[in-house]
């Protein structure tokens, strides 16, 4: 396409920074004038070293890969895997590999670093390894087979990561550190001590102040570490993690200027002493400093890409080395001058050995500015402190309140207080000003901000802060919160409910044609399906409704994290005969289902594959069970205590009432799930006051409580009516539920529904008890229709071969073996294979 001659750009190294450079470079228009060739020493394209230890949780290196294989092809990048550069000839402007010689116009060195192995006698024995590449991990993994003990030499950030890896491999893990404390670079003495005790509690033995003098053959284990103080430690595997050194050999051989202790010297344009050669990432040295974190490397990559394309607006002027991470599950954060080395600086500390938390602030001599901080045990303070430190914001008068726990006066650094220059996302260098500019430019929501600015798409550490800034700025711009259900319907759920009922609409297609637009989405489809079911109570899997249901409703089961399902048969009132209990047990045993008693007095069976669901339900239905609707926005359970039948305190038969209620309302679809309970006396053993509908027995009948719930925001139910007869109780609940179904918003539980009704509880009493709207008869009749149309959805499915076929995992292949989903034994049952999710920011 371009008319100018194609120039050759060679990149040596395809690590995280090298890959970021390629992406940054390609995103520039001038990139079209260049042919890009990338040399990788490893046999795989760039992968995520930050999350390296995840390799051990699922043994899948491909998941760590940063870009799809097609990325290089699609962008015309020539990626030379397994082709390390042997020499650079600056006169001829060529690089030489074992395979060929390549000309360059410009050259980028992104060679990264290599692990430093201390010069200890015996460090080259078998099972003495390092921790940096996937090949290293494979070696550690191989060495750990038939091994019992593993030792990491080096108690820094990477060393503790490596110790975690050894632990994941099932080894007894030890960490040996030369300094008197762990993480001496980032933490002070107290922080290091606390980290040590927390890590020891997790089963990793920590040995500080230990210099290893030699490694010899072991007697019990394969190897023996001999320390300078005469002590020894036997182990099967040794992993060196005693720091990294810049991989500057190619630059050194080519005569580029290096630092006294290594590193290729660069200027603020990321150019080396040869202006046609750039260096970025861990191999580069800027003003005497190396940068071993991913964010500064990305900044260098951005700068080099800009300069190469003639954009001189960007420069690299050093980077903040603050870091927060989770090591073996322990929060650790370090900001700026963590050691208080600034002359005259003062410090404030909070130390709580009971809770296992430590925080330190390093302040300027006048106490007005934050220079640095150390956090162990709780990183929730990190974001605010980092913003104070990076932006030089004036501290509050009582800076210690920034690190005190649960203090009511804790001055939160709100999004409004941040200056426009504040960097929110350091991976992609996005400032608050850039966010505001994007919002002013027409971006309307968080998702839009993420895709337009790339903020929070790197390590993700700033996600919470970004969200609060975007929300604050949106509301400051007067963006109104719309009550429209979604882009397809300009109505609230309540309005749609009325339209469906008034117009007698029976399908989603009718409704979207007459009152909506487009084709629907995952918001409106299940909402309309629920309205249709609430109005007409046709089976949710009847043909016109199949494509509307959320997965759980589609398959009448609850999807779990590994793609298998759980099964919950209805056990009305929690009463079950021994024979029925045995039949559940038999099914669970036959299909090896993980079995757990739920909070609602029933039994949840986990781990069934899609294909197994009809087989399992056939057996359960044959044994006399019916579906428990655990998957639906509908009545879950009516919990009960044993009541007057057995209990010497009971005044009414709570179990019979619970069974009556559960059978009456089972299957009725509602805006959200509904829970009920019946207690046989005022001692309230069924915890009815935490339910949407709670019934408590009195000497004279029943007290009715409404609109309570447990969950994220617990709320006690309100006393609604007292001393009701059975008939009164049922008619009030009929009316209440039907009124809720007709008027609540999508996914609104009864508690917030009532809070949003003008007049609240009193208004509800007027409508339900005093019939102020003249609706009572209609509400009861509509509820009667729903009750009359009840069917066990699983029975319906089993009776219909076409519906049953929906439960085949594959339309063209046999059912997958359950083992394909990944299960491991735990306490005598099978649970999903564990996954780690350690989204933190280290390299």
């Amino acid at each position, binding site marked *: 396409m371009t008319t100018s001659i194609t120039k050759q750009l060679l990149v040596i190294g395809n690590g995280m920074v090298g890959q970021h450079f390629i992406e940054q470079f390609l995103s520039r228009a001038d990139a079209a004038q260049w042919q890009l060739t990338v040399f990788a020493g490893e046999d795989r394209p760039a992968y995520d070293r930050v999350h390296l230890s995840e390799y051990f*949780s*699922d*043994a*899948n290196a*491909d*998941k760590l890969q940063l870009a*799809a294989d097609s990325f290089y092809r699609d962008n015309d990048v020539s990626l030379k895997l397994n082709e390390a550069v042997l020499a650079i000839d600056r006169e001829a402007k060529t690089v030489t590999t074992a395979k060929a010689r390549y000309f360059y116009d410009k050259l980028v060195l992104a060679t990264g670093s290599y692990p430093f192995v201390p010069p200890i006698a015996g460090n080259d024995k078998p099972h003495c390894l390092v921790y940096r590449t996937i090949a290293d991990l494979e070696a550690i993994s191989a060495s750990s087979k038939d091994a019992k003990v593993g030792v990491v030499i080096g108690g820094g950030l990477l060393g503790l990561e490596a110790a975690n890896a050894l632990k994941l491999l099932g080894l007894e893990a030890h960490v040996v550190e030369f300094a008197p404390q762990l993480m001496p670079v980032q933490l002070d003495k107290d922080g290091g001590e606390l980290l040590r005790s927390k890590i020891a509690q997790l089963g990793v033995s920590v040995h500080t102040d230990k210099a290893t003098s030699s490694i010899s053959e072991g007697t019990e284990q394969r190897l023996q570490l001999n320390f300078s103080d005469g002590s020894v430690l036997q182990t099967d595997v040794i992993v060196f993690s005693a720091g990294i050194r810049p991989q500057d050999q190619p630059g050194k051989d080519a005569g580029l200027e290096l630092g006294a202790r290594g590193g290729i010297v660069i200027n603020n344009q990321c150019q080396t002493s040869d202006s046609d050669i750039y260096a970025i990432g861990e191999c580069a040295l800027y003003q005497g400093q190396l940068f071993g974190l991913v964010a500064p490397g990305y900044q260098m990559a951005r700068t080099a890409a800009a300069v190469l394309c003639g954009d001189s607006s960007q420069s690299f002027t050093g980077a903040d080395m603050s870091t927060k991470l989770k090591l073996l599950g322990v929060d650790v954060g370090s900001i700026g001058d963590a050691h208080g080395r600034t002359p005259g600086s003062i410090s404030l500390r909070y130390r709580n050995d009971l809770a296992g938390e430590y925080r330190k602030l390093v302040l300027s001599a006048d106490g007005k500015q934050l220079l640095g901080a150390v956090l162990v045990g709780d990183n929730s303070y990190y974001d605010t402190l980092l913003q104070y430190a990076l932006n030089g914001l004036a501290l509050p008068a009582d800076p210690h309140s920034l690190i005190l726990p649960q203090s009511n006066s804790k001055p939160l650094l709100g999004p409004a207080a941040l200056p426009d220059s504040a960097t929110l996302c350091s991976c992609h260098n996005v400032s608050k000003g850039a966010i505001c500019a994007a919002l002013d430019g027409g971006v309307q929501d968080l*998702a839009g901000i*993420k*895709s337009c600015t*790339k903020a929070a*798409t790197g390590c993700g550490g700033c996600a919470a802060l970004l969200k609060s800034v975007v929300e604050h700025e949106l509301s400051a711009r007067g963006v109104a919160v719309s009550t429209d259900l979604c*882009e*397809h319907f300009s109505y609230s759920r309540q309005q749609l409910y009325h339209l469906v009922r008034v117009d007698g609409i029976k399908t989603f297609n009718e409704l979207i044609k007459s009152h909506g637009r*487009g*084709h*629907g*989405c*995952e*918001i409106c*489809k*299940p909402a309309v399906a629920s309205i249709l079911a609430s109005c007409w109570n046709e089976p949710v899997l009847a043909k016109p409704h*199949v*494509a*509307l249901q*959320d*997965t759980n409703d*589609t*398959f009448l089961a609850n*999807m779990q*994290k*590994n*793609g298998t399902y759980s099964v919950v048969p209805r056990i009305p009132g929690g009463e079950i005969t021994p024979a029925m209990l045995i039949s559940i047990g038999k099914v669970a045993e036959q299909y090896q289902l993980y079995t757990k008693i739920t909070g609602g007095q029933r039994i949840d069976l986990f781990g069934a594959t899609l294909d197994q669901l009809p087989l399992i339900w056939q057996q359960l239905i044959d044994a006399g069970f019916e579906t428990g609707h655990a998957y639906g926005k509908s009545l879950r359970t009516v919990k009960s205590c044993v009541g007057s039948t057995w209990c010497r305190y009971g005044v009414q038969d709570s179990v019979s009432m619970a069974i009556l209620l559960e059978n009456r309302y089972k299957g009725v679809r509602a805006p959200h799930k509904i829970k009920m309970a019946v207690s046989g006396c005022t001692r309230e053993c069924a915890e009815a006051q935490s339910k949407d509908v709670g019934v408590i027995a009195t000497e004279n009948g029943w007290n009715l409580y409404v609109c309570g719930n447990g969950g994220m925001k617990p709320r006690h139910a309100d006393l609604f009516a007292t001393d009701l007869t059975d008939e009164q109780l049922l008619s009030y609940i009929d009316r209440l539920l039907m009124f809720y179904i007709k008027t609540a918003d999508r996914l609104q539980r009864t508690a917030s529904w009532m809070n949003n009704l003008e007049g609240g509880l009193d208004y509800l009493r007027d409508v339900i008890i005093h019939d102020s709207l003249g609706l009572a008869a209609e509400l009861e009749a509509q509820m009667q229709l729903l009750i009359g149309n009840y069917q066990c959805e699983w029975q319906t499915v089993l009776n219909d071969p076409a519906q049953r076929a*929906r439960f085949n*995992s*594959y*339309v*063209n*292949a046999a059912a*997958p073996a359950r*083992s*394909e*989903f*990944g299960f491991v034994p735990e306490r005598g049952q099978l649970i999903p*294979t564990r*996954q780690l999710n350690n989204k933190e920011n280290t390299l």
Partner: protein
Amino acid sequence: MSQLAYALENQPEIQQQPVLLCQQQDLVPYSGVAARFAEHAIALFYLPGKEVELYGVSHIDPASGAPVMAHGLLGESKGAFYIAAPLHKQQYQLSDGQCLSDSTLKLQVFNVQLQHGQVWLLPPME
């Protein structure tokens, strides 16, 4: 991470000839079904009467590794169709598999076609 997903991602076998996956009547209008070819699990979404009537994307949820994408809800925004992952509701464009809420996630797209009542998997388009 399921072992199925592991096998799928590790053995990307690219077929050279068209392969018959299933019949049209196996598809569910405006919803998804899953089909298998070699180590691949493919989610097929059928949109009768639309400009593109059939989409094929990976059945494996990129966020969780679980084989569940065919069970996601079909959605539409400004005329473009997407699938909402059933576990955590990330949205993936059917045309190219790109996740709309997380630029690092992407579904593999398969070249599928409906011909004379049969569903075919064609060699990938370059």
